[in-house]
């Protein structure tokens, strides 16, 4: 199995960069590799809201990097048309909460075109969107909606937790012949990590990574909660041995890696910032129950948002946001 730490253990040269820079590097390299890759979105020429694409307009010019009016439906629908006719558009949707205004284009056009046309077309587009709370941005700018999109047939969804994964996966997403929605948690843009500098560094879509080995409890943690889970694992060292898995791709989900880990530990905690009902938690739990029920020594535990929108006031926001303490309590319940 090449999954455990495969991306960091190699002899490749690396550099320490932020999550934001990792995505930018991935975008830059793929734009260099393939003239069909173009970026567009609102304020894209200035690097868009979170400055992920800063400098790319200067480097690649107005043919490759473009501003659009505020028209998410046209942005996504247009990307389907562009992708089906030979481009590889990377479209920024800024806050994923805005997905509502272009949901038809995601659900019915991006996700179904190829299928409905009997495989006659390919739709190699990437939609980038930010998720996550913690900035007091209130309910319409703080949501985590990846479950909604992962539920749609015909779409792949990616949600990296580390700079390495971010770079490797943005590159794979651009190279993917299928539509990919790439979710970026906005609160981890400044987290740093070792990232391979090679142009060839990619991470396959659909492959999880075991980032911390353990024997007692498996914690599957996404995005911001991944680094929280890593800290908890270190905190509990010597007491509870925690295995931490970053699924990296939400759909398709690398259930095999998770099931194998649970076969070893017998216990499962799923930490993800989306609402707890009907979500990513339920999917992971259900896969493990279906295929690994008899390896479980305790009921799987969910850590997430208790089905509320995200409130504005910092105190209230903190109240509903899951964190390391929640992960620790969940581990304590089953260890």
């Amino acid at each position, binding site marked *: 199995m090449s999954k455990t730490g495969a991306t960091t253990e190699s002899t490749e040269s690396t550099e320490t960069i932020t999550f934001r820079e990792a995505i930018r590097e991935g975008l830059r390299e793929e734009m260099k590799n393939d003239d069909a890759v173009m970026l567009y979105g609102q304020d894209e020429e*200035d690097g868009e809201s979170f400055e992920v694409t800063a400098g790319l307009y200067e480097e690649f010019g107005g043919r490759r990097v473009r501003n659009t009016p*505020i028209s998410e439906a046209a942005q996504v629908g247009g990307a389907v048309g562009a992708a089906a006719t030979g481009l590889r558009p990377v479209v920024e949707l800024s806050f994923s909460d805005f997905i509502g205004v272009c949901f038809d284009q995601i659900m019915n056009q991006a996700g179904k075109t190829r299928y409905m046309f009997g495989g006659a077309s390919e739709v190699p587009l990437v939609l980038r969107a930010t998720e996550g709370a913690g900035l007091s941005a209130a309910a319409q700018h703080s949501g985590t909606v990846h479950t909604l999109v992962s539920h749609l047939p015909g779409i792949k969804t990616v949600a990296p937790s580390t700079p390495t994964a971010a770079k490797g996966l943005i590159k794979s997403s651009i190279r993917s012949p299928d539509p990919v929605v790439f979710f970026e948690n906005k609160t981890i843009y400044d987290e740093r990590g070792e990232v391979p500098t090679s142009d060839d560094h990619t991470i396959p879509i659909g492959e999880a990574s075991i980032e911390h080995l353990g024997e007692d409890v498996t914690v599957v943690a996404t995005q911001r909660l991944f680094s929280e889970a890593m800290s908890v694992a270190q905190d509990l060292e010597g007491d509870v041995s925690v295995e931490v898995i970053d699924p990296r791709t939400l759909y398709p989900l690398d259930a095999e890696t998770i099931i194998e880990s649970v076969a070893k530990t017998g216990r499962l905690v799923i930490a993800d910032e989306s609402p707890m009902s009907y979500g990513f938690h339920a999917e992971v739990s259900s896969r493990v129950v279906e295929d690994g029920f008899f390896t479980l020594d*305790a009921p799987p*535990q969910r850590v997430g948002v208790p089905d509320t929108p995200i409130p*504005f*006031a910092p105190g209230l926001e903190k109240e509903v946001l899951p964190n390391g303490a929640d992960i620790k309590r969940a581990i304590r319940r089953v260890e």
Partner: protein
Amino acid sequence: MTFLNIDSPEGRQEALEKMLLARAFEDTVQDQFADGEIPGFVHLSQGQEAVAVGTCGALREGDYITSTHRAHGHSIAKGLEPDRLLAELYGKEPGQCRGKGGSMHVADLDQGMLGAQPIVGASAPLAMGAGITAQYGNEDWISLAFIGDGAVAEGQVHESFNLAATWGLPVVFVIENNLYSEGMVFDEQHNIEDLADMSASYGVPGVVVDGQDVEAVHEAVSEARQRALEDEGPTIIEAKTYRYRGHFEGDQQPYRSDEEIEEWRDERDPISNFARKLIEAGELTESGLEELRETAEAKMADALEFARKADEADADEAYEDVFVETVPEIEQHRERLAREQPHWGEY
């Protein structure tokens, strides 16, 4: 109460007072945000006060507005009190929305403020929908949407224009064209000079008005309101204006020059120009103006004290108001997360 009889000296004075209050409110917000007292994202509208006050001053009690992410001026103009508005920006319990909304989601149904909508374009269908209610019940009020120039590129805005026009709804659309949408300049987003020209596609009147002139805005909205009340359907008004601050507080504004901003501030400020006009007409003295400024600032000092001293929202508040009839899941999830005991093996 929002109506201002702008044809009278009292009404004009009130309009000036409201603009000064809106400006003072946002100056306070600007400072307190810079000091780290106000969390989240803040979008200011200094420079656009004449649109807010001219528009809301033409409305009557019972009329509704919907607003955008840049909603402080509209809210003050519609009659919201600065203390509860500011407390909301602080995320405090007595805030307008009990700390759950913040700057981008302020509402006050009692004052006819149906809500700030940071989903760009969403203010249009909401006001259109209120117009359906008014028409359906043969009510004597209208609804009005503030829409940004950038928002006019959103499909839902056009769907709302079309539906309101086709059904002859009592709605007024006020496009506040401040030349910028985040960092994109107007002509990068639209291929026409006057957005009001779009009205032709819907068969409704389109009006371009100087958004720096509170009286002109008031007059245009009053006429549109009258048409709406007389079952003549919607009007699309475009008010040409300008914002002095960045898109949000903290915006470095690489997309425009300081000179451009200074030029608007010096030559086209809606408050100074209006005050000068009143002084020249003998309706106001320099010292009278100074007094009005001081009153606005004193109001803001009180509001600031109120907001600072107000209680934080209670943690339980976070779980309230998701539904009218509660569901068990929220409490269950909450308890599940917080549960220290028992260990599952003890079951």
